[in-house]
């Protein structure tokens, strides 16, 4: 067997086992499964995709809030060092739009997403998923967007009607791939 056909054979085997390896790059990345990325895969889509199992109520949330959140966000969620969390009044001019949390955000999902990934400020990722649901319930109930006794979970968080849902305009449509938010 000539060297040439031997190389061809190796190339064929290589091609068959890894057909899509990029030819001109080092290929030093290690294969990883979605399962192994799960701990980092934190983002919650506006549809609710990504919401974990668990549930919580506003009453449970208030207890957690008082201990872990009120120091920065105010006793009633009115804001302090951190932004205000509880509010549902419409924006009144450009001064305050970005500080009115649940009265301004188009979706409920970022509230869960941000609390879970970044809060409390001094110890992020220390809350259980149940506690995050409870804090969301406390914020949304306090803002009048859900009943005070609502049990929030993966099936209903993304369905919370957000008053400013249609308040946004894509700045550069040509640069922005179309998306169909729920």
């Amino acid at each position, binding site marked *: 067997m000539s060297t040439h056909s031997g190389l061809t054979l190796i190339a064929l085997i290589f091609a068959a086992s890894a057909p899509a390896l990029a030819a001109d790059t080092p290929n030093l990345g290690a294969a990883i*499964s979605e399962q192994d990325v799960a701990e980092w895969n*934190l983002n919650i889509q506006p549809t609710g995709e990504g919401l974990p199992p668990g549930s919580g109520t506003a009453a449970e949330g208030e207890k957690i809030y008082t201990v872990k959140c009120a120091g920065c966000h105010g006793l009633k969620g009115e804001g302090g060092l951190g932004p205000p969390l509880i509010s549902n009044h419409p924006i009144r001019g450009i001064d*305050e739009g970005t500080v009115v949390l649940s009265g301004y955000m188009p979706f409920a999902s970022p509230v869960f997403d941000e609390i879970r*990934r970044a809060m409390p400020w001094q110890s992020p990722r220390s809350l259980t998923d149940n506690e995050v649901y409870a804090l969301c319930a406390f914020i949304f109930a306090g803002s009048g967007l859900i009943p005070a006794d609502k049990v929030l979970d993966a099936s209903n968080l993304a369905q919370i009607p957000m008053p400013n849902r249609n308040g946004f305009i*894509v700045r*550069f449509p040509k640069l922005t791939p179309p*998306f169909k938010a729920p």
Partner: protein
Amino acid sequence: MATSNENANRELARLVPVASNGLLHRREFLNRALSFATAATTGLVVARAVPAEALTDPKWSLVNGAPIPPYQTPSKYAAKVVRTLANPNNLPKVSQSRTPHHLMEGTLTPNGLHFTIVHAGIPDIDPDQHRFVIHGLVKRPLEWRVEDLMRYPLVSRFAFIECGGNSAPLFSPTPIQADVQALHGLVSCAEWTGVRLSTLLEETGIDPRAKWFIAEGADAPHLERSVPLWKAHADALIALYQNGEPLMPGNGFPMRLVLPGFEGNMQIKFLRRIKLLAEPGMSYYEAQVYTEPLPTGKAYQFFFLSEVKSFITFPSYGFKLPAPGLYQISGLAYSGLGKIKTVKISADGGKSWATAALDGVPRDKAFTRFRLPWHWNGGPAILQSKAIDEKGNEQPTRAKFVAERGELATALSVMAFPNHHFNAVMSWAIDSRGEITNVYA
């Protein structure tokens, strides 16, 4: 052979202002040195207040100096050329540091002066343990270590990075009196070296349903933003080096996303994860923080770009012009849509304009330094700069800008970001004492 007198007369003839209130042709300083004789003849310079004296050896010329440090830091006499800190005690809120552009020149921000914003302090990341993963709508999710990425084909490019909130004080209804650092210090420009994101996506493969990616940091906020996938193919970089040395901790060590021309907050520092998606992630920062409320009650979303912009760094607030005479106006221009094509300068509040000299060859989505000689006659002047990029985008006047984007009802702290993406023409007024103030003109 021309006599010096004839030369002086020829130069004098050229010193015809090209726009009113003393703006001279852009070549006066740059292509030829303006001779002192000519300048004196035309009354453009005045004698220095402190006359020259007989020279002696100063003390530092008579002793041996200090040893060379392993990593050199600026002279103690340049101690004022530092960033200003919005949250020096690391209280539980965002921390910002601003670049002192009024004390700097050229187009490249040294790493110690590059602006930094972190939302929960600067993380202490061991590069040997850092992991970066690309997953989601790809054919093969892959994970890299820093040392793996170092072996990839590296590319270098200059790019400015601007916080969406830079220049936000100019949304105030009355001009806030603050220096260039306070008003415009949340933009810097560096040479970034790293691996093209598109190179890594060749290896993971892309599911055709993918139209967006989210990028996430490894610091405590796990900050996440959504980016259109086309940007990955265009010019997105996984940067490992900043001006030739490893990234600074405050600028993303050991790796960051660089998205030339895009809002700084999207250029995720401490990058650990990219996930390809069909839809944007709608994180807190894009659903709330970096949306831009409009006077209509609606708000812009997915602003992405730093549009064409410029500001004058000298003369500017905090300086005082000591006497009438010849000065060089200097400033920075940049556009998130490409190269700077032209910068125009006015000394009369926008009534007449002169074309500034661009120092060097303008680079794509990077700082361009502009300069223009100016003879201040000692009277009132309003200096403005207006940049135009290669796509023909022009900086709007402030009046036009706020007509669309709105103006705050009340003046806020210079540190506040009530709104973002301010790129209108800015104005420095000079009064007859040489004092400089921020004005709306």
